[in-house]
């Protein structure tokens, strides 16, 4: 089971959204980290065959996915970002509809849909119209539909949006239980979600794959670049303008800032252990400054 992207480039009106992206994925959970507009959604859509790349190829088990797209779609599960459901369908009906679109036998589909709805905690809501679902429920339904065909490749674009902390924990457990012998790629802004469940993280910055590796490995690449410093109120504005700040906490002695910087930002700054959130800000500091 091998998903390979070779030199994927995508342009819209001559502006490149993805630049020569290449990577190989084996079974496991991958977190795609990137700021808004970094090309995550475009990359997902290209893998799912919904958008065509300008150059490059994607192969699954050494076969170009475009040479037999139906076969690839049969083993694909996709939760896109930002879409609306059919409000007058019940959760169960929507699941069965997607099952029919995925070509799953009616009897098997019903059983599978019930199992998945139970798994995402929607069994009590299965016969209620989707218009009555909360944002979190819709997101869980989206996750369930992506898994109907027991996909070998599961792509989840911002799956934890709208989920409360309890639901996020449930989601993480669900993905972990599901991840055996599957390639799961997910993107999220909630860095901790990726940190907990991803075996490997891919950093996509302005359409380029900047780095990849296990969470700890990537975090180590910026060890020595994260500082903590207590700053007086009078100097606060100056520091905030000059550095990327990952955290700010007010104490009786002044404001404690967590600063990402190659150099020591203040005389009293102390090096601290970096986190994935710091890494995110390190890569996307320009967006953070905006």
């Amino acid at each position, binding site marked *: 089971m091998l998903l390979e992207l070779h030199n994927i480039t995508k342009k*819209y009106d001559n502006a490149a959204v993805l630049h020569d992206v290449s990577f190989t994925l084996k079974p496991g959970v991958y977190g795609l980290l990137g700021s808004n507009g970094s090309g995550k959604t475009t990359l997902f*859509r290209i893998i*799912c*065959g*919904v*958008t*065509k790349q300008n150059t490059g190829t994607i192969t699954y088990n050494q076969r170009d996915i475009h040479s037999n*797209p*139906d076969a690839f*779609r*049969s083993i*694909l599960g*996709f*939760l*896109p970002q*930002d*879409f*609306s*459901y*059919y409000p*007058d*369908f019940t959760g169960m*009906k929507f699941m069965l*509809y*997607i099952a*029919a*679109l*995925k*070509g799953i036998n*009616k009897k098997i589909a019903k059983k599978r849909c019930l199992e998945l709805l139970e798994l995402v905690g929607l069994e009590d809501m299965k016969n209620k119209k989707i218009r009555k679902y909360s944002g979190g429920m819709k997101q869980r339904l989206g996750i369930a*539909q992506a898994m109907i*065909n027991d996909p070998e490749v599961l792509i989840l674009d911002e799956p934890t949006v709208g989920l409360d902390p309890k639901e996020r924990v449930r989601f993480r457990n669900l993905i972990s239980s599901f991840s055996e012998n599957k390639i799961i790629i997910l993107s999220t802004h909630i860095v901790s979600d990726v940190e907990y469940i991803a075996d490997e993280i891919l950093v996509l910055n302005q359409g380029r794959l900047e780095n990849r590796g296990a969470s700890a490995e990537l975090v180590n690449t910026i060890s020595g670049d994260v500082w903590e410093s207590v700053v007086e109120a009078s100097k606060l504005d100056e520091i905030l303008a000059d550095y990327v700040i990952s955290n700010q906490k007010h104490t009786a002695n002044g404001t404690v800032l967590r600063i990402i910087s190659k150099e020591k930002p203040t005389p009293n700054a102390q090096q601290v252990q970096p986190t994935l959130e710091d890494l995110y800000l390190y890569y996307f500091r320009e967006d953070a400054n905006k």
Partner: protein
Amino acid sequence: MRTLVKYEIEKIIQSKSFIGGMLVSLVVLAGILFIGFYYSQLHISGEKIGDGTELYHEVVKESTGEFTDQKVKDILSVYIDRYQSKESDNKTFDLFSWQIGDTFFPKDIDIYLTMNEAIAQNNKMTIDEINLKAIEDLGFTAFDAPLTIGSYVTWYDLYKVNDQLFILISIITILICSIVFSSDASRNLNQLLLSTKFGRNQLTVSKIIAATCISTFVFLFIQIVSVVCFYVYNSGFGGWDISIQTNFSLKLFTFPVEFNQLQVFLLVVAFHFVSMLSIVGITLFVSSITRSPFSSLVISLGLFFLPKALTEFFKRGIIYKLLNLFPINNYSIYNFLSLLSSKRDFLLNSFIQNVVFTMIVLLIAKVVLDIMVYWRMKNNQIA
């Protein structure tokens, strides 16, 4: 595939625009039927509503038969006798005979003024005093079998109602089909649907089948309701076998084909059905290239009415003839019979050739547009 068609039908009939559109359409349908039949000129042309129809059926009963000069003379003789009769209150208008009189009375004298003067002088005008026009002089088409005359006013009312119903059916069809693809696009759902196994093939076919089935159902429902109302209004289907040339409301005396009124009605219904299929094809195509149901609806309605507006600029020539292929220019029974039987207005030489040609063109349009929709969805890319 059947499961997908079922879901697609459900999606359409559960949509707000369909439910709202159907409710409004039912009101409009009731209005068309009420005005077209119950409130028709025939039905209200007496002191009480219904007197006119009662008189009409009496007159039709006496007048039905072979269409000859003598028959016309007999009908008009009875008509002017009744008009001048002292017993008659003259308040119930005999539309049947009036229209025949309007055709056969000479134009150089005002027969009604003359009759009124005769009544004032206690005299009575007779049919022999009127120099009626001859059937031959009016150019009625002759066939091997003689033309027949009988109930035609009610059939003309059916034709008028049918014309208005076609516009209603077309608008409902456009409303139904405009949401089929564009609503998924507006929900941003295509990215999900197109990533599934059947999202680019069976789903498109299912949507086309669902939209065509619902439009067909609406078409049949409206036609059946209309025919039932006509049956009640006309007290049956009397007059079905009367020659279309002797429909004095329609005034197509020279129509070249030997059709009775029922044959014309059935032919027009079949023609409207094929026209509706082409509207389904055009609207589904528009729906597949637009991202919102509203823009799809507006563009489709624009395309439906546009050929009518263009005939104001192109009044002859090949473009005019091509514009007459569009449903909006030939949907009315009068236009259907007159345009398609005219070499000046249509492409081929005979009515039957033109009917067959137009139906084939409309069916080809439907099939080609469906193939284009399928092809487009198969290769659809989300930007």
